[in-house]
């Protein structure tokens, strides 16, 4: 009875306390997770443990099913919570998914008003698949070898890649894991002064698919090693009270990679030679070498202040100065011994970027109905890496080529943002807002030296109604560029009337609306709408149009505390149009009959439905749910009526369909013990012209030695039984 009263009280409070209906329909938007057995608990418990067993069978692409999680069969300790509280301190400990690749452990201790410390160990798996194959073997970290005799046989044409390496194929357990150890300490020096420190160590280990090409006819994919560490340190001291705030902080980040280079054998050759063109067969070097991620450092110091001013105003300022550093030793231009060494301009990268950011903000509410905000932000990415001069370089370890750019282009940019907003609240539950924003960017080494993006916006926002809420916004922005330098494109052989879409002249109109209605105490209805339209009228080539249409509707029905149901449907449509011209250097480059267009039309449908019966009987609860995500993306080619290109053979649409159905129940056995059991069905279907097994059908495809990293369908059945004991 007490539990029922608490539930009803919570329900009434939720309805009365605001317009946000976050009900069962919203819950179904999340990934299904084990049914929460906690309702058996009350507020006086100090801990709970949830253990049992799980059986999972997967037919198909296990790597995609378990992409970021570990759902193997076996005993489970899915959840442990412990909380011990005294008048002046509290201690808590959490365990999730113990013993599995996605396990997590955490502990927190807090002395009220004094020290707060926390530690977390969190593992995030990334599973590419257990059916990937490769003929390479790791000789040592970062060195991948093929059988020398086979290399020689292929070189001597006594065998082929397909015949020679077929027997050497082994399965790769293609996965990596991110292990995050995070420690945080905060200490309240006085009531107004806090000291904070955090130290996070992120280790990534495993392998990942990696492109390692020798040429257009010999691209190779390997399982590159992942073994790196990042240490992040954050410290700050902050003084604050309602009148003002001062904060000084230092943040540092150290990235180190145990595998800073990758060496891999050429399947076509055992001895080095050079070839004339990258378009040749990729049979120049006996091995290739590339850099992997270099070690780097980042340091940032920042100061922040804010002060309360008359007329309910506040001024805020933040300045930060940072430095990103990377000075790894540079590899030679090539590992190919048949190519005479080319002197390096310098021995190490000497890469550095100085980052200066400023943020100034003033807000004021001279009367309760009027609100103003003005903001200026500066972000300056000052790349101080010296130009690395390159006259000749080695293309794909195969041949010497002359650089068209003469070396590196240490790209940098500066962004200035100005934002002005004013809001008028004619009645207390609604606000009308108008605003203007301008972003001016200066940059180097790109088509436009400067772009300015001006945005006007207006919104109507309601809040605080018991019947629901409505929000509506419209904004229009226009971006224009100046300092056009078509020579940048001409130098590298691009069409000079190409406009890079992220800096091209562009108009954008966007409308968004959110409505939530509570017509009765048991029914919630909501919907969202988003329409976006981008046009790039000055882009003769490149991305021209980019449109979005999205709408969702949702219904939540809770006729009683014992029943709730939710249904959500979402529709998204994305459309883009881009133009190109298929050309070789020479007359074709200027021939408009060789123009072609790509139209992308992607539709996505999302459905979530659930029925929750938390009190089927006094101790029995159940929930069933269904989720569907279906997307269809069509890339359609167009050519001119007078085209001189061959008629394109259209690509098959890319389809991704995800179904998930769940049925779960819990049965209270005693006051302290709850039994949970459930079944999940997952089905994924995919048709992808680039990644489906019909395309990537062999790791030794002619001209493409790959890992067989397909996107494949799967069907998975998961059943579990769990016991939750609370004390």
């Amino acid at each position, binding site marked *: 009875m007490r539990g029922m009263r608490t539930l009803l009280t919570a329900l009434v409070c*939720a309805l*009365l306390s*605001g317009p*946000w209906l*976050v009900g069962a329909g*919203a819950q179904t938007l999340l*990934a299904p997770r084990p049914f929460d057995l906690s309702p058996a608990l009350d507020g006086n418990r100090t801990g709970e443990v949830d253990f049992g067993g799980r059986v999972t069978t997967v037919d198909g692409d296990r790597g995609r099913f378990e992409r*970021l999680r570990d759902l193997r069969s076996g005993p489970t300790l899915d959840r442990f919570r412990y909380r011990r509280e005294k*008048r002046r301190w509290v201690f808590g400990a959490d365990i999730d998914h113990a013993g599995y690749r996605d396990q997590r452990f955490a502990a927190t201790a807090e002395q009220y008003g004094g020290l707060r410390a926390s530690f977390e160990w969190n593992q*995030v798996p990334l599973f590419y698949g257990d059916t990937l194959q490769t003929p390479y073997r790791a000789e040592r970290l970062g060195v991948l070898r093929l059988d020398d005799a086979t290399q020689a046989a292929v070189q001597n044409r006594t065998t082929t890649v397909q015949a020679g390496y077929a027997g050497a194929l082994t399965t790769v357990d293609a996965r990596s894991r991110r292990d995050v150890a995070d420690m945080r300490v905060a200490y309240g020096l006085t*009531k107004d002064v806090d000291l904070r420190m955090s130290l996070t160590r992120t280790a990534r280990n495993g392998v990942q*698919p990696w492109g390692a090409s020798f040429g257009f006819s010999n*691209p190779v994919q390997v399982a590159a090693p992942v073994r790196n560490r990042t240490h992040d340190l954050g410290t700050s001291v*902050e003084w*604050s009270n309602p009148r003002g705030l001062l*904060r000084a902080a230092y943040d540092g*980040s150290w990235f180190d990679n145990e595998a800073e280079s990758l060496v891999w054998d050429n399947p076509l050759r055992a001895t080095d030679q050079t070839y004339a063109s990258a378009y040749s067969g990729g049979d120049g070097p006996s091995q*290739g070498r590339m850099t992997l991620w270099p070690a780097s450092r980042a340091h940032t110091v920042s100061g922040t202040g804010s002060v309360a001013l008359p007329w*309910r105003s506040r001024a805020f300022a*933040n300045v930060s100065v940072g430095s990103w550093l*990377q000075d790894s030793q*540079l*590899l030679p*231009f090539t590992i190919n011994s048949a190519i005479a060494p*080319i002197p390096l*301009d310098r021995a190490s*990268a000497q*890469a*550095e970027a100085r980052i200066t*950011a400023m943020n100034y903000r003033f*807000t004021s509410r001279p*009367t309760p109905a009027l609100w103003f*905000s003005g*903001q200026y932000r500066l972000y300056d990415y000052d*790349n101080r890496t010296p130009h690395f001069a390159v006259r000749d370089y080695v*293309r*794909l370890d195969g041949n010497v080529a002359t650089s068209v750019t003469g070396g590196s282009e240490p790209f940098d940019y500066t962004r200035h943002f100005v934002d002005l907003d004013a*809001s008028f609240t004619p009645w*207390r539950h609604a*606000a009308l807002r108008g605003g203007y924003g301008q972003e001016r960017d200066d940059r180097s080494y790109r088509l436009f030296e400067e772009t300015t993006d001006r945005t006007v916006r207006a*919104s109507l926002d309601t809040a*605080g109604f018991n019947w629901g809420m409505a*929000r509506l916004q419209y904004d229009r922005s226009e971006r224009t560029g100046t300092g056009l330098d078509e020579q940048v494109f001409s130098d590298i*052989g691009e069409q000079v009337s190409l406009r*890079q879409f992220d800096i091209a002249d562009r108009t954008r109109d966007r409308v968004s609306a959110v409505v939530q209605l509570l017509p009765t105490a048991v029914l919630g209805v909501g919907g969202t709408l988003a329409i976006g339209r981008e046009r790039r009228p000055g882009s003769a080539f*490149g991305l021209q149009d980019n449109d979005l249409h999205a709408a969702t509707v949702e219904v939540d029905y809770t006729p009683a505390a014992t029943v709730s149901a939710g249904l959500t449907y979402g529709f998204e449509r994305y459309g883009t149009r*881009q133009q*190109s*011209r*298929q050309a070789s250097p020479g007359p074709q480059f200027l021939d408009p009959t060789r123009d072609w267009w790509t139209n992308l039309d992607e539709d996505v449908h*999302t459905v979530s439905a659930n029925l929750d019966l938390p009190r089927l009987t006094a101790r029995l609860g159940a929930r069933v749910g269904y989720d569907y*995500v279906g*997307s269809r993306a069509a890339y359609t*080619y167009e050519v001119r009526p007078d085209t001189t290109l061959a008629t394109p053979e259209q*690509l098959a649409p890319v389809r991704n369909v995800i179904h998930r159905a769940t049925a779960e129940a819990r049965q209270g056995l005693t006051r302290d013990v709850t039994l949970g059991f459930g079944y999940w069905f997952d089905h*994924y279907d995919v048709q992808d012209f680039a*990644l489906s097994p019909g395309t*990537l059908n062999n790791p030794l495809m002619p*001209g*493409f030695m790959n890992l067989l990293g397909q996107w494949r369908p799967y069907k998975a059945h998961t059943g579990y039984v769990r016991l939750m004991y609370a004390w």
Partner: protein
Amino acid sequence: MAAAWAAAVLTTSAAIAGAGPGPQRNAPGAAAPEPPAEYIGSDNCLGCHSDKGAQMEGTLHGKAAVPRSPAAGRGCESCHGPGSRHLSDPSVPGSIRRFDQVAAREASQTCLGCHTRSSHALWEGSTHDARNLSCVTCHSVHAPRSARAQLKAASEPELCVTCHRTQVLKTRRVSHMPVQEGKMACSSCHNPHGSTNVRLLRVGNWINESCVSCHAEKRGPFLFEHAAGRESCVSCHDPHGSSNDRMLVAKTPMLCQRCHIGTRHPSTLYDNAAVRAGNARIIGRGCVNCHQQIHGSNHPSGQSLTR
């Protein structure tokens, strides 16, 4: 005209100010001003609102040992204001500050009286503040449903989805951040209370600083850089999820051909015939089969981002 408009606005807003909570304004000719309300102590409040007291005990707000908590101050009246008039006659509108009956910024102002520091320091002027949200739009002091942060929903995505449905829907696509899996939440990247970054991003001062706070290997700087990527990761990636490999906004080579169309292979139309022929410029990972170092290369021969 502008002056008249301004006067009208100020008059209206002053009238609204009078309608709000707090000291009541007296109409001309009214009787003597009512004495200001006085603090009466939480025990008086709990005489009628005992359920609220029980709910508060489980939260930091209800712990007197926390020096900054309401319980360490004036209890219920720390937030609801002095209660003597409400005690005298609860039916009088405005006799006590009720957060479902005040304007959004008025509600937030109360919370900001204490929540001035750390991640809350930039609330005023933030996107959510500008859109007339208040603290109690998302948080519930008395009836929270989340294990932490006293949210009105059981988890962050369930709360944020109310307005940001398109973004949350994307986290369910086949390529997504580990939000579904519980390894990330909306607040892993965003600070809904305001930030120095765009899009309420929690870390740094520009989009890329937020991304490389986890993907530190892509931070560089590199000897050779992909300028578009250095400007913004989201030109190519959709951080909430997509139907494409690596959360790309479109498939390669079409995505790359939005900017690279010069001559020879970048300008070529790769149709189904190319797929059937096993052309590595469209199958598998497309352009990245060769241009693997798309985020930047530290190799002296890496200007085409292949080494």
